[in-house]
């Protein structure tokens, strides 16, 4: 494996880690109600 491929793998892994963090934070159980609140609030009659 040359340096370029290692870089490639590294970047791919980094992106994956970032994605995992975003998913983890978004789906954090504690914030569940807060994170889903907008979908109920937008239903209020306007």
């Amino acid at each position: 494996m040359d340096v370029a491929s290692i870089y490639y793998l590294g970047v791919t892994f980094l992106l994956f880690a970032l994605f995992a963090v975003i998913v983890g934070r978004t789906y954090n159980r504690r914030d569940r109600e807060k994170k889903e609140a907008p979908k109920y609030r937008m239903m209020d009659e306007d």
Partner: protein
Amino acid sequence: MGQQEGYADDVVKGFIIWSIVWGLVAVLLGVLISLQLAWPQLNFPPYFTYGRLRPIHTNAGIFGWGIGSFMAFFFYITQRLTRTRLWSPKLARFQLCLFNVVIALAAITLAMGMNRSKEYAELEWPVALLVVVLWVIFSVNIIMTIVKRREEQMYISLWYIMAALVGVAVLYLVNNVGIPISLTKSYSAYAGANDANVQWWYGHNAVAMVLTAPPLALFYYFLPKSTGVPIYSHRMGVIAFWSLIFMYLWTGAHHLLWTPVPDWVQTLAMAFSIMLIAPSWGAVFNGYFSMNGQWHQMRDNYLVKFLIFGITFYGLQTLQGPSQAVRTFSGFIHYTDWVPGHVHMGTLGWVSLVLFASIYYIFPRLYGREIYSVGMVNLHFWLAVIGQLIFSISMWIAGVQQAAMLHATNPDGSLHYSFMETMIELYPYWHARAFGGVIYFASLLVFIYNLIKTATSGKPAPVAARP
């Protein structure tokens, strides 16, 4: 709290009406140029040839009908999701005038042959500058409204709206950099393969920022509003949002597979195109899951019918697109009629169906009247869907047939068909395509007639009348 009066909705009406006018122009021109391909004697040089009319068709469709109606709905949705009156209704009214001036100027200059030749960025620099002004005042108005909002959390539609605002700005500015020669002529600042790569970074992400993010904003807003049931998952919307706007920007070079653009750029574009299936279908699933227990509304509620058919076409579009972005399949299908078939499923199927639903939703509210004829809404729906399917399916068959003929070889390795032999086989498909276009045009006439009757003689209805 009686906010309906508090919102600046006159300008929403204006944008809706004018976007429909430009949409009608786009489809009419589409029918004309489809006939020109089948009967070349319908070209009337110099102003009315296929080469000059096709950019007017695409510009009127994307910018006149697409962006025009998105402007209306961004104003409408943003005010409601923020529970705040538009930051400057005066600026918005000026924006409507400028919008119409720009689209009319675009049509005239393109017919006169003032054309930068870059697809969806054809407008010469003075007109392009006006587009920039238009976009800046639009963005400022929306963003200022969001900044001074009274609803703390931002619903997912606002995310897509804001991403579209910055996305379009970045794309348009970079791809329009040029060297002016005179008021009516300029050259691209980039050369050759660089220019191609910049152009398709722009071209494909115009699809992302104009034909994906805004209709998704509308879909996420109007689907719950129409069904009366909240969207399935806001958090899934958030994940899909970040993935979508991250991945889209890598994929432009799938328009340039097998060209002299560096191979690694093409390969990245191919990989990210396939990855894009995930966030695209995130939105599709969000729509389908929201329908849980509500599927009967497909029968009872015409708004839902438009929206669910729309998101289904989006789902098909985002499977077909990535498959075309694979080198082997691209090598076969690219440059044939398959591609216009694909594009029109997105524009006539996905984007326009969502826009029709959105207009049917807000029109009675804006005019305080019930929709004039539900029967006509249904007629509009079926004509539009059938017209689009005739168009796309005939083009897919034409594309596969021509591709197969172009690639056919004899045992000694020579080509089996000359170019013309493959081309003359397309005439029947071009007739079918024009026929599909005429049906779609008829659907628009029904749509417009119904709206006019609603505005002038629909039954007065309570503001929140749900169909």
